[in-house]
């Protein structure tokens, strides 16, 4: 990968110093192995371990790490560590809290009684309990496969990188059949690390419930890798300085993105979504967005590329507006530069603007994650999340950033469901109507303030994980502060609460079993109450550009229903709760965002199990037919839309493929 080899010579990755003492050893251990990551250089294809690099060694520290060397596996270890850590740190600064890896869900023998004990989940059989194990470190295997592939394994909580004998396009640049290592590509490492981080936030985003879900995973990983690439001004300076004449932002930066697409190749969503080299003029030109593509394209990479292209276009629009005055000055208003090289000052300023804009866009995308539903995500949901998150933090969008995003999505035919028009105001999620449940919300918010107080002083990630868990499931251990967990409070406080049902689209009423929802006897409920899961809980603190601070607690709830679609002779469909033959599982969920300063519920972003319109109008409980049909259709794909690999190796809705990302990345 020539582009990256050139980069390495120019870039120094600045990684925060790891100072914690563990097992008597201070700082980063050989591997490298640290707080977030452990690199294990084991090659299973030849059953060999390689000597781990010790970045804490004074010799190596003094020279900014090992010199780039493809032939030294220790450099590979250093590279994956550096890029992964950079990606993690960028995420943390945008999210406003530490990155946690997705926990490992295991079956444990339950020695406690099912009744009377606080539990976060109540669907387990009495003999086995399901529990979430904390995963301290993501594993990275830099030499795991012999294939032109690299993937994140949600099951192993690990990144696996492959290497292969390459046929180079240009034999003057590289020996034929030379080994190419995917672990040496910044873009691929950043892409895979993002998969892992996203999985840590929303582990249900690997459930393929609509055509956008897996596409979103791919696209988001590309977005982070792409914009992180752009945050290195040196990279941009080279490209900008190499330009003569036309400074149209598009061609310049688009070409860079194009090269990213080439480098990441089939590992990412991008490919040629952004643009291509015009065969006649030999110049790069942007791809004109096609409003039909989103409707027709279903393959996750191709579909994801549409989203990446949309975000990239938004970035270009914003960048152009930011440098408009610079260009006017530099060209004396004509927009065309004089012959010769660009002034180094101008190059610097342009590069720095591009880099800043890239950083902003990246932050907007990462922050938007907190405003997404916990499952079944669509591109439209993501657009709404971006607009809402940005509006929440930045009151005055004087540079029209939000309009740039909306426009880019609109041009590609991506319209969120149920929205009347595409203005920032319409797209922003509305403040939920909590009249009916005002009191309960206030009490809940007060409880969540306690949570915030407890968690604010915790910096250790494992303790954060445990604190989250405690406040969800409750704490009844002797000698520890007693906590009635969030799950129990919701179970009790919103019993038969139609108001809460209208808000979340989930079932809390007594007729739950007709709707295909299992009963739970948790907390001694008799008769049983509808089962649900508090999927996640976290505290987010964000500071806007004006110094304003947001203090929010984000709760996600999910619920499962077993349903069946019935069709009468006329073709009219109906949905009922059913656990028999031909039934399938539909999951609903809701993201609730509580404001700790006002003690109010700011947002309820829902993927309902219930038909909320009928509930609102007539207070009748009916399952959501639209979502069920969409789910069923998606999980029984017609063979026409499959790639050959999917047609042969796919499971056709009869189960899960072993490794979803390895599968996706193979063509």
């Amino acid at each position, binding site marked *: 990968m020539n582009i990256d080899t050139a980069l390495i010579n120019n870039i120094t990755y600045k990684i925060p110093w790891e100072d914690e003492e563990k097992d008597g050893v201070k700082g980063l251990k*050989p591997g490298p192995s640290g707080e977030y990551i452990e690199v294990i250089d084991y090659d*299973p294809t030849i059953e060999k371990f390689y000597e781990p690099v010790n970045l804490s060694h004074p010799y190596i520290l003094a020279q900014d790490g090992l010199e780039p060397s493809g032939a030294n596996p220790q450099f590979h270890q250093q590279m994956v560590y550096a890029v992964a850590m950079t990606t993690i740190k960028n995420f943390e600064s945008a999210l406003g809290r530490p990155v946690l890896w997705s926990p490992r*869900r*295991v*079956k444990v023998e339950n020695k406690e009684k099912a009744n009377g004990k606080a539990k976060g989940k109540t669907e387990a059989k009495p003999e086995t309990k399901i529990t979430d194990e904390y995963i301290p470190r993501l594993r990275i295997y830099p030499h795991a496969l012999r294939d032109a592939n690299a993937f994140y394994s949600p099951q192993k909580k*690990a990144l696996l990188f492959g290497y292969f004998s390459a046929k180079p*396009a240009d034999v003057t640049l590289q020996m034929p059949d030379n080994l190419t290592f995917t672990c040496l590509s910044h873009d691929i490492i950043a892409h895979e690390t993002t998969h892992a981080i996203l999985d840590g936030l929303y582990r249900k985003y690997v459930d393929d419930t609509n055509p956008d879900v897996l596409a979103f995973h791919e696209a988001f990983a590309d977005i982070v890798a792409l914009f992180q690439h752009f945050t290195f001004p040196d990279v941009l300076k080279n490209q900008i300085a190499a330009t003569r004449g036309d400074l149209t932002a598009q061609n310049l930066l688009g070409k860079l993105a194009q090269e990213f697409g080439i480098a990441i190749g089939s590992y990412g969503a991008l490919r040629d979504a952004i643009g291509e080299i015009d065969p006649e003029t030999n110049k790069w030109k942007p791809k004109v967005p096609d409003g039909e593509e989103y409707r027709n394209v279903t393959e996750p990479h191709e579909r994801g590329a549409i989203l990446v292209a949309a975000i990239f276009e938004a970035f270009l629009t914003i960048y152009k507006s930011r440098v408009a005055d610079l260009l006017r000055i530099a060209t004396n208003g004509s927009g065309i530069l004089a012959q010769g090289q660009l002034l180094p000052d101008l190059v610097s300023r342009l590069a720095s603007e591009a880099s800043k804009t890239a950083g902003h866009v990246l932050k907007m995308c990462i922050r938007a994650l907190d405003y997404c539903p916990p499952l079944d995500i669509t591109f439209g949901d993501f657009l709404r999340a971006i607009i809402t998150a940005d509006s929440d933090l930045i009151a005055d969008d004087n540079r029209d950033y939000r309009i740039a995003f909306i426009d880019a999505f609109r041009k590609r035919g991506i319209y969120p469901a149920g929205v009347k028009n595409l203005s920032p105001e319409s797209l922003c999620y509305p403040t939920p109507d909590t009249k009916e449940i005002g009191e309960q919300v206030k009490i809940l918010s007060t409880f969540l303030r306690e949570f915030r107080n407890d968690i604010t002083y915790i910096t250790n990630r494992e303790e954060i994980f445990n604190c989250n868990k405690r406040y969800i499931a409750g704490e009844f251990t002797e000698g520890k502060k007693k906590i009635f967990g969030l799950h129990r409070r919701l179970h009790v406080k919103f019993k038969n609460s139609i108001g809460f049902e209208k808000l979340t689209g989930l079932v809390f009423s007594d007729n739950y079993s007709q709707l295909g929802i299992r009963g739970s006897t948790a907390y001694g409920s008799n008769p049983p109450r509808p089962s649900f899961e508090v999927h996640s809980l976290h505290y987010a603190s964000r500071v806007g550009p004006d110094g304003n601070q947001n203090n929010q607690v984000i709760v996600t709830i999910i619920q499962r229903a077993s349903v069946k679609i019935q069709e009468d002779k006329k073709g009219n469909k109906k949905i009922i709760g059913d656990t028999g033959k031909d039934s399938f599982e539909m999951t609903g969920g809701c993201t609730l965002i509580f404001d700790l300063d006002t003690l109010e519920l700011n947002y309820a972003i829902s993927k309902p199990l219930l038909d909320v319109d009928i509930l609102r109008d007539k207070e009748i409980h009916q399952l959501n037919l639209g979502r069920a049909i969409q789910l069923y259709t998606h999980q029984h794909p017609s063979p026409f839309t499959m790639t050959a690999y999917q*047609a042969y190796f796919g499971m056709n809705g009869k189960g899960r493929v072993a490794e979803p990302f390895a599968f996706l990345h193979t063509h």
Partner: protein
Amino acid sequence: MHFYIHIKLTKMPTSTINKVNIRLYRAGTGDCFLLQFKAGNTVKCKMMIDCGCIQGARGDFEPWLKDIKKETGGKIDILVVTHQHEDHINGFKRCPDLFDKFTFKKVWFAWTEDESDAFANDLRQNHSKTSMAIQAATTKLQGLVKNKFFNSLYKDEVGSEFMVKGQEHFVNVVSNLNSLNTNNVLGANGKIPSMVTLFKDFKVIKPNTKVEFFNPGDLMKDLSELPGMRIFVLGPPRDTDKLDIESAKGENFDKREKPSKKDAAFAAAVLGNSDGTDLLPFETIYELNEKKSPLKDAYLDAKDKWRTIDTDWLLSSGSMALRYEGSINNTSLALAFQFIGSERVLLFPADAEVGNWTSWHEGLSWTIKINGVNKKVNAEYILNNTVFYKIGHHCSQNGSASRLGVNMMTSDDLTAMAPLNFKRIQPNWLNTMPNDILCATLIDKTKGKLYFSGNKDELMKNIKTKRVTIKKSHEDVLNKLNDDFDGEIFVECEIKG
């Protein structure tokens, strides 16, 4: 007075072929054709094209051979062997004793089997490495399933049953793909032999059998066995880029590396070949060997077994096996038989995929005499005149080019045969065969003259999807033609010259 009556004698072509009887034997998905070229009622030439059936057992082939013996007396003038996939040649493998009693005057192969052709030998060498690697990987994976490796790996996971099933499904598919490959055994000199050697073992090629190899662009005419006919050789292309094309989309990443055709790194590891650089990516000085390391301990810790990656790399064999299937399909000998007088063509492309089909239109031409005049013709001419089409690759989408293939079949007297049969078929093929649009297009073009190897109702159910429309009149023709062969071991049609 002497009267001389001049009578113009027009040469009566009683000895030139003017029709052909085409019989497709049906026990499952696979090709086995008996062609009897006739001049009037005399059979001039008896030709077999392939003899195979996926997952075919001896019991499947015995009735065919009995029938062929009956029709031909066991004397076959020409045997065409199109490519080495099992579903085209396993009949020979299973019944060498029966074939021993047959005589084959000539056996035809593509240039790929010519052991004096350096390019062919090179290709076979590369293919053999890939084929053996896939075989080795499949064996290892099957071993893991047998030893319940995945059950133990995932035992504590929630949803472990799904994960185990997922892996088992994967291994099944790779095994199926692997089972297509015949040549997994090394010959005496460490190389995989060509099909010539194989067919000698099958007792098909005997000392006085003439073996011939063909290249694209070849033209056979004035053959003593086939008076009145000429044969165009369309493929396989002598171009590895074409042979390895899996799909029709173009690649415009001219800067990106692609995995080397040799897949050397994977093959070396799975076969355990220690021939130097292919196997070890780094110098031995970097290896940890016996030295202690907490990371090594962490990896080997039984508690963390669920995070180990000892077997994930074997899964790369999946895409490799799929690519290889396409590569071998593209080595299919693609022939077009033409009646000289009427210019009508019988097209037999075996399992050629897109790479092979498109190569027909790139630079190939033949000079033939039409009405006494020399004319240079190309693939489009051949397709325009096609009146019989053996549907490529069992009705998959990849097996019939559309723009450069079926769309150019403009004759209004087209007949087609589909060697697709659900009675014996690999489960993963069910997603790709039959392709509804392809079959509906052919039903339309043939006006219903489409013969199925398999059960017509079963297959039509899969063809009549929401995307296609089929005329009732065509369907009626199709039903009648196929019903006539209910219970028979073959379907048959006669094509007039």
